[in-house]
């Protein structure tokens, strides 16, 4: 198989990778914010429920979580889900997992906000939600952007775990091609594709960081 053919096959599979990546980000970023609110709640029960959630999601392997989400319905509840469930299970697994990580990042950003900001906002007559969305959140985003970039880049590479429930994304394809071609070339090419994509992601995040540092 010519290198161009391998690249083509890998690129097709890469679309699945990008799909998983974008959907996970789209859903996990907002969900993470909600979870972080729960985690910082004044109500002890709510706080502890979310603490346990974060602890389990971060404390067990993502691969295991994917298997639970996919095979769980059958083994626990005897529910037979349609074939399309494979991809949905991947997204559910990834979103639940990454939301936990994002929640902790949001929390670190929000809790590092100086009390003075809240006091000044109160003095100026901002309501609670106005304070949060207009004063606090922009500052939080600026502060956590490097951590978020880290997680985002990790996400791109974690998509290769989707194979444990038989969703073919780029790394799986590279493995299959390497087996059938008896060569390492597919791995090298897939590594290159991952790198280029991550480079673009990092460049975009850097641009965002620059554009948000309007005080510097």
């Amino acid at each position, binding site marked *: 198989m010519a290198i161009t053919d391998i690249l083509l096959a890998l690129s097709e599979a890469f679309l699945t990778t990008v799909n998983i990546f974008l959907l996970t980000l789209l859903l996990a970023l907002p969900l993470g914010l909600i979870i972080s609110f729960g985690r910082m709640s004044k109500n002890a*029960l709510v706080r502890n429920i979310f603490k346990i959630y974060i602890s389990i999601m971060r404390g067990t392997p993502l691969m295991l979580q994917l298997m639970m989400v996919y095979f769980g319905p059958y083994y626990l509840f*005897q529910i037979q889900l349609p074939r399309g469930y494979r991809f949905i299970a991947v997204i559910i697994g990834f979103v639940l997992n990454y939301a936990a990580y994002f929640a902790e990042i949001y929390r670190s950003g929000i809790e590092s906000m100086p009390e003075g900001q809240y006091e000044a906002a109160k003095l100026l007559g901002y309501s609670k939600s106005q304070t949060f969305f207009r004063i606090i959140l922009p500052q939080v985003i600026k502060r956590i952007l490097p951590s978020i970039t880290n997680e985002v880049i990790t996400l791109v590479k974690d998509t290769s775990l989707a194979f444990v429930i038989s969703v073919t994304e780029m790394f799986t394809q590279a493995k299959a091609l390497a*087996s059938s071609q*008896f060569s390492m070339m597919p791995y090298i090419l897939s590594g290159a594709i991952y790198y280029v994509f991550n480079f673009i992601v990092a460049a975009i995040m850097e641009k965002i960081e620059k554009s948000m540092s309007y005080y510097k």
Partner: protein
Amino acid sequence: MKKIMILVLALLVVLTGCAGNSTKDDDENSDKTLETGALLHTVEEGKFIVGFDQDFPPMGFIGEDGEFTGFDIELAKATAEKLGYELVLQPIAWDAKDMELESGNIDCIWNGFTITGREEGYEWTKAYMANQQVFVVKADSGIKTKADLAGKVVAVQTDSAAQSAIHADKELLDTFAELVTVADYNTGFLDLMQGATDALAMDEIVARYQIANRADADFIVLDEALSSEEYGVGFKKGNTGLRDQVQTALEELAASGKIAEISVKWFGKDITTIK
């Protein structure tokens, strides 16, 4: 606090109750029940979903044109055609194969699937090929017999027949320095090539194909085999209806010479055992 707990518990009970009911309805309506073996039951109407390991040439792998190909794939294609099903090829993670089959995501496992040692776990067709589990070593390793494997690092694929065969032979296993598992045979061969392992135990048919196609190192197969066994197609326990259908199709293909044709194409001669 108590009220919340009671509410949550009640919800759970209702949910599991509903789930139980809905599967029963499905059973009555769509013949998808896997209790009554007499009925024909594929997981999806009209489709025959074959689960296979896509890292397993020559039985199932990605061909030059980017499509799935291999001896087992072609045999499955011919069978699906004969039975009038639409063939769906589903690559699976080999160590998740049982879960995929159990939970109804695939109809059968079909790729160099060894019957020997797994008789009780699945509904099997009659064997369509005989095979041996052999040891692959580098040509210059100096290992010639099973005895030479003493103190060596031996690799097997996770959940493979080779793994079971070695575990069944305690004496042999105890002579090894270590038994390592790999996820797929490509990794296995890479380990072997660079000396991380000394031997790889695997299916002879696959071993010979791999050796013939790997130009970068010289491997040999030890004369002393690990075990003899047979390949079959595995179905979920209880799914005798589909199994019998596929069995009949295979026998018809054998009678018409189609199986021999596929075998010659891949192995140069007819090594199948279906009559």
